[in-house]
């Protein structure tokens, strides 16, 4: 078993005492399942896009929860800082996250 502390990134508190078995699961935001929680690893490049996501609160290091995956084939809805945000499929494909509680 490997104990890993996620670093303090961009003003977030470090996770204390988190235990992982095996490797971290990286995937695209659009591939997350309902109820899964993850931290944002990488936002898509391109100033406007990154700026827009950042101002909504979606930044590298933030924790989010998947509330609804592609409702009626459309955008995904996540909860971040207690707030719901809808993100279009294409954008969500380009955001990489690290899953905390996998529901595979």
């Amino acid at each position, binding site marked *: 078993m490997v104990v890993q502390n996620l670093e303090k990134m*961009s*003003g*977030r*508190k470090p996770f204390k005492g988190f235990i992982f078995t095996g490797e971290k699961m990286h995937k695209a935001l659009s591939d997350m399942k*309902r109820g899964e929680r993850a931290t944002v690893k990488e936002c898509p490049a391109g100033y*406007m896009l990154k*700026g*827009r*996501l*950042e*101002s*909504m*609160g979606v*930044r590298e290091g933030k924790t989010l929860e998947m*509330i*609804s*995956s592609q*409702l*009626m*084939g*459309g*955008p995904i*809805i996540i909860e971040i*800082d*207690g*707030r*719901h*945000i*809808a*993100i*279009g*499929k*294409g*954008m969500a494909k380009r955001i990489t996250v690290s899953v905390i509680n996998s529901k595979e």
Partner: protein
Amino acid sequence: MKIQLMGNPNVGKSVIFSRLTGTHVVASNYSGTTVEFKKGSLRTGGEKAELVDVPGSYTLQPTNRAEEVAAKMVAEGDIIINVIDATNLERNLMLTLQLLETGKPMIAVLNMWDEVLEHGITIDTGKLEEELGIPVVTTCGISGEGVSSIKEALKNARPGKPIAKKGDEWSVIGDIVEKVQKIEHRHPTIRQKLAHASVHPFMGPAIAGIVLLFSFFFVVYVGDWLHEEVLDKIFDILWLPVVTMLSNVMGGEGLLHNMLIGQLIDGAIDFEESFGLLTTGLFIPLAVVMPFIFCFYFVLSLLEDIGYLPRLGTMVDNVMHKIGLHGFSIVPMLLGIGCNVPGAMAGRILETRKEKFIALTLLSICVPCMAQIAMVVALLAQAGVAGLAIVFSTLFLLSIILGIVMKAFIRGETPELLLDIPPYRVPYWKSMAKKIYMRMRGYIREAMPYVLLGILIINILYTIGVMDLLSRFFSPVITGLFGLPGEAGGALIAGFLRKDVAVGMLAPMGLGFRQLIVASVLLMIYFPCAATFVVLSKELGARDMLKSTAIMLIVTLVVGTLLNFILTAAGL
């Protein structure tokens, strides 16, 4: 002195604005743009100051048109009231830090303070004041609590500490939040559970279906009740005697009589068919259309203020993309059902030229306004529900086909949805009432003159025989392609000015079932009414307007002819 209300979208700036200002509020456009903002006045420290409700922005580094305008407006203000959503402190502080950088005197208002507790959040406002260097007050816009303290705090507005260098902001914000805020887990409230259910894979669409059905039935049944039991009776009891007396005084005929009272049907005044300025001209907008418009705006304002629209937008996003739009463009469409004019103006929220063009063209062609709907329902109801079903399914089908075609042929991208979905809130009823009142007032101010003008012009055209000439000129199309009697041409011409009046003209023509359907569909799709036309031209610009008009013409000819032949072949 100019005081500016600045903050993220959805933080309740408008409610605070309406609490601080009186009744004299002006909505205007920032020069050279389509971005709107509101201005009002406020008394503070014995002085009268101008209060401006600046468009909501997340940052002063603009990512869209509204933010561009907000960024420009900052320079023009003397004092800034930064409205912050207390349940979302971290995200809101970004704008706060940027505003602090400007060095202008500021105060911070932590709004939605009532919800902070139920989220398990505690905020040390004293410490926050220390960190930011500006006065901090807490308010609940909806109940009004704390709003009076804003005026007090304004006296102490001061430039805060410019605390963050560019690029450093989030870590500074993180530090502040850590010092000032604590969050404990709380059980989800009913509203939060409802919010989750609204976007659940099964419950979401189910809830949407229920909401839409309820809205539809409310508008149709309550609207109809208001029409039959209230307004119709008011007209019969109060107005009929007046116009009857007027008619008798004028001897029942003559030019003036025909203009004002219209034709007597069986020796009496019929509000729907007489077609005079004082009879039909008042009856249609006030007794037939207004009740439906009121019910419609009631439901829309309720859904808006509760916060359901973004969720609806998210659910329809996928389908909308197939016709070249994105989810939130459902808002101008929904507005257009009330009246196409505010629907067309709402097209401003769409960022790209392609989306705007598709949305506004679809709006003019496939979204009938409540005035038309009310009249068509009145006209076709006698023939049974089948007629209405055919009319509206044709519109629906047309919108999908037209949308897909336009999406394929128009250059440009449709942007992805990125939408903040606010929590469900109990609406502030005064704010809702004001909203409904303003929309109703707008309807009466804009619709009435056109209705009266329309009836006047049509009466004149008939009297001098021009109508007859035009009808005969167009009759090959009207009779040959559309299967309608030549006189229907008069209705089509009237429809340029007002759709409801035009539908009203069909009533005495004794049209058959099939003809009623074709005529109704034609009136709905061919051109928008004059008022909408004007707004559209401003929104689209000359070139796009021409393209849109060409599409309208082609669609009219094709659909009218096809519908006529299909229905004839079906034996109707």
